[in-house]
């Protein structure tokens, strides 16, 4: 028998932990299945919900009362006529009728959904209640029909299109290619989702190799292995990082497929694809982030004694890792050297920029490198701290863990 090297020992431990982890249904669900299923499901639900809302809105019958002010009866009649003119009840089930305003408050009781007040002179006033969807819908239908009617009247009087009066006729034209637009839409969400999924992917394995080992009484078995402790704990952290990376990769695949197929269904002006060059640019950012998250979560979980306690603690602290990733969703945030050094924030903004970039020249390579190095360095520090934390002998979880985990902590106290 010869002594096995530390690195090889860590690989053996990591391989064993991964085999063990991926035999667990919960880990497989959160790491592999959920990222693949979640995005198509999310997009599909959004599409269906949008179609449903649109369908419900167009089919919804509303009532609009037109009330004549003093000496404005004729004008009120002409408003009702204008509103009714050319209306197709199958697509616009709105009832327009003259009234005296005594039927009740707008959108309350027997009152109409909206009320149009017609004065003798001056602009009409459309009353609606912004806290009621029916009332908003009624006001929008009135506005649309009156807008058309006003333009028609003007053109009738002019005997020419209204546009002819405008000194500079213009229209807006979006020059963004569908791919660019798709990249922009996805880049807002992708970094946040990647980091959230990396955190979730590390969550169960981190608890499993620490508190889970204690609960199953396999920690002692693990510690009996004739290899350096650093190899054991390093291997365990590596297995958590691989599980987290797998979750992130599946997340990327799931999101790309879903966005590619379903964004196009929303609009023909939007499409998305993630070329291999961008995947390769994202890879170091993702790996550095995953290493940091795996080490940090494993270090935290190593202070707990039971799975329940571990879940409770990490459930509370995982927000600390996910929230900074929201930086990528905020407008106006640029990747500077200073920002790049901030954990999670730097990598999430860098990921956003990679997804949006048309070419390498669009990227701030210096800050991107800083964000990678910063995360890798923090990951190494977190790994060292995690190994140190895991080596400590404890009789029970520390008081701060018991306080943070509350009932779960008490239940888990051994």
């Amino acid at each position, binding site marked *: *028998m010869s002594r096995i090297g530390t690195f090889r020992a860590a690989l*053996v431990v990591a391989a*064993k932990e991964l085999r*063990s982890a991926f035999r667990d249904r919960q880990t497989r669900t959160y790491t592999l299945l959920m990222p693949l299923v979640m995005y198509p499901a999310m997009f599909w639900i959004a599409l269906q919900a949008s179609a449903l809302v649109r369908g419900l809105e167009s089919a919804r019958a509303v009532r609009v009362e037109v009330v004549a002010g003093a000496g404005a009866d004729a004008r009120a009649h002409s408003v009702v006529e204008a509103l009714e003119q050319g209306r197709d009840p199958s697509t616009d089930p709105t009832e327009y009728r003259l009234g005296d305003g005594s039927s009740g408050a707008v959108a309350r009781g027997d009152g109409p959904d909206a009320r149009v007040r017609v004065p003798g002179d001056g602009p009409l006033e459309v009353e609606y209640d912004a806290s009621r969807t029916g009332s908003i819908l009624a006001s929008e239908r009135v506005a649309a029909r009156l807008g058309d009617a006003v333009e028609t009247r003007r053109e009738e009087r002019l005997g020419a299109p209204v546009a002819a009066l405008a000194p500079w006729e213009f229209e807006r034209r979006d020059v963004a290619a569908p791919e660019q637009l798709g990249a922009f839409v996805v880049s807002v969400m992708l970094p946040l989702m990647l980091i959230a999924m990396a955190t979730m992917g590390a969550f169960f394995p981190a608890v499993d190799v620490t508190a889970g080992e204690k609960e199953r009484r*396999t920690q*002692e*078995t693990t*510690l009996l292995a004739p290899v350096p402790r650093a190899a054991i704990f390093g291997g365990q952290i590596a297995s958590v990082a691989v599980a987290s990376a797998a979750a992130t990769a599946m997340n990327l695949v799931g999101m790309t497929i879903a966005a590619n197929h379903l964004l196009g269904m929303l609009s023909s002006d939007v499409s998305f694809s993630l070329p291999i060059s961008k995947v390769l640019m994202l890879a170091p950012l993702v790996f550095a982030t995953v290493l940091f998250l795996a080490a940090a979560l494993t270090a935290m979980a190593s202070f707990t004694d039971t799975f329940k306690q571990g879940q409770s603690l990490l459930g509370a602290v995982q927000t600390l890792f996910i929230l900074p990733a929201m930086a990528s969703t905020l407008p106006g945030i640029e990747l500077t050297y200073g920002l790049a050094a901030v954990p999670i924030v730097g990598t999430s903004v860098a990921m956003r920029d990679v997804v949006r970039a048309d070419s390498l020249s669009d990227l701030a390579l210096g800050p991107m490198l800083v964000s990678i190095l910063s995360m890798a360095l923090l990951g190494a520090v977190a790994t060292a701290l995690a190994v140190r934390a895991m080596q400590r002998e404890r009789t029970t979880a520390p008081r701060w863990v018991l306080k943070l985990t509350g009932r779960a902590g008490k239940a888990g106290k051994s």
Partner: protein
Amino acid sequence: MNDTTHGAAVVTRGLEKSYAHPVEGEVRALRGLDLECRFGEIFGLLGPNGAGKSTTLRILATTLRPTRGTAVVDGVDVTVDPQEVRRRIGFLSATTGLYPRLDARETLRYFGTLHGLEKRALEDRIEELVESFSIGPFAKQRCEQLSSGQKQRVNIARAVLHDPDVLILDEPTTGLDILGTSEMIDFIQSRRDGRRCVLFSTHVLSEAERLCDRIGIIYGGDLLGVGTLDELRAETGAQWLEDVFREYVRRAREKTTA
């Protein structure tokens, strides 16, 4: 490895262990323990719960670090080269769990690889152990699906996979039924081959009486007496091991109150 059949397999001098307990404060589990176990003998550490048996054995197995004192296993200091100590011992306790999602062969392969066994030699050794401990019928089942008796057999196979000369067993029969206990006792006896040392802890007097060449009586973190059963009887004037044990404890209590 040892080159003499009667050399010291385990030596501890002034071994102390204190824990910082968040509620109870400092707990002294061992108070300067001096112990010597030889190759070729089965040594029983006899004491009640909380006496310091498990702490002693876990320090020897390097899963705990001593607060003070020295512990040497097969010539290697546990604090100087714990990795080498773990290579030379086999450790098993009633609470040593098996990885639930690995099967018996995978468990043995994992530990064999970490022990540095060559692939061919490892596979041969696994087959040998599967045969000798009758693991075959359930070798492909995950450990979480095994009965406690089957788990025990896999655990013993794990502990002796690298054929260690020093076997440390912490209350190995706790939680086992009659058949499991009997198998464990047979196993311990099978290790009495004049070459190896088996150090095991128990609070079951009959086990100590039946198996041990020498017995150490431990109480309150101190070793109160060591010797063969006859030597302990002569020292205390008691006939039965239970009375021997009680006599030692009585003397220790008197000493404390004095």
